[in-house]
């Protein structure tokens, strides 16, 4: 059902509702596109960075704990 509803959108002319998107100046349109990409990917990148940092800390802690267990066994 959803594709049937969305299909006409492929042939429909652009509805320039946004004052910035419909700006005739190409510079403004480019800025709008870049800003949209920036605001879309920045939160994803920020969350990925925090997740990556957690993962690195977890691996370091696991390695540290593994070394402690090994030392205890050797003692």
């Amino acid at each position, binding site marked *: 059902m959803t594709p049937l509803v969305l299909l006409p959108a492929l042939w429909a002319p652009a509805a320039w509702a946004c004052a910035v998107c419909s700006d005739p100046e190409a510079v403004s349109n480019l800025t*709008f596109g870049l*800003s949209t990409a*920036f*605001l879309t990917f920045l939160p994803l990148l*920020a969350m990925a960075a925090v997740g990556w940092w*957690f993962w690195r800390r977890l691996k370091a802690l696991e390695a540290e704990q593994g070394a402690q267990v090994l030392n205890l066994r050797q003692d």
Partner: protein
Amino acid sequence: MSVTALPLDAAQRRGPPKPTLKVAPNGVVGMLIFITSELMLFAGLVSAIAIVKARASMWPPPGQPRLPVAETAVNTLALLASGALMYWAGKKFLENPRSALKPLRIGIVLGLFFVGFQGAEWVAMLGQGLTLQSSAMGSFFYLVVGIHGLHALAAITAMIWVERRLTAGRLSHTEFWTARLFWYFVVLVWPVLYWRLYPATVGS
């Protein structure tokens, strides 16, 4: 004689509990979430500046004073130096907590210098006719610098609290780590705001 198997309860079936690893203290995790949301606030402002600038035929708008680029660059260096000092204080704290006091205090003084300088700049710009209503540049200038200044004041307050706790010998590593994270955010977001707000000119 019959033997009936007694049902094992859930805890027995699971076996001995595995040791859990605490990856980061709760305060640090909370601060990271807060910083991520604050990052989006400043990203929204930076995007808004970019779009308004791209639509402007001339930037700064006609009849509006120029922002003090060189003076604020020096102030930016002071803020970056305070960030470096806080980083150094964090390193010193791990070796000997008392040895972190000196870089921490100098960092706080540099932070106060930054906020005081920005305040003086506000007064000077108001005197030259740049107000919140005078132009889009004036609106962005007071909004962005004001919001960042509030963050800087909050971070300085946190650092003064840290300094008091450290002097009394009651500061924990987690408390210092959490406060420093916020300070790093305030320091690192400013150069981006400066770059978008101060030096760029269009069509003039």
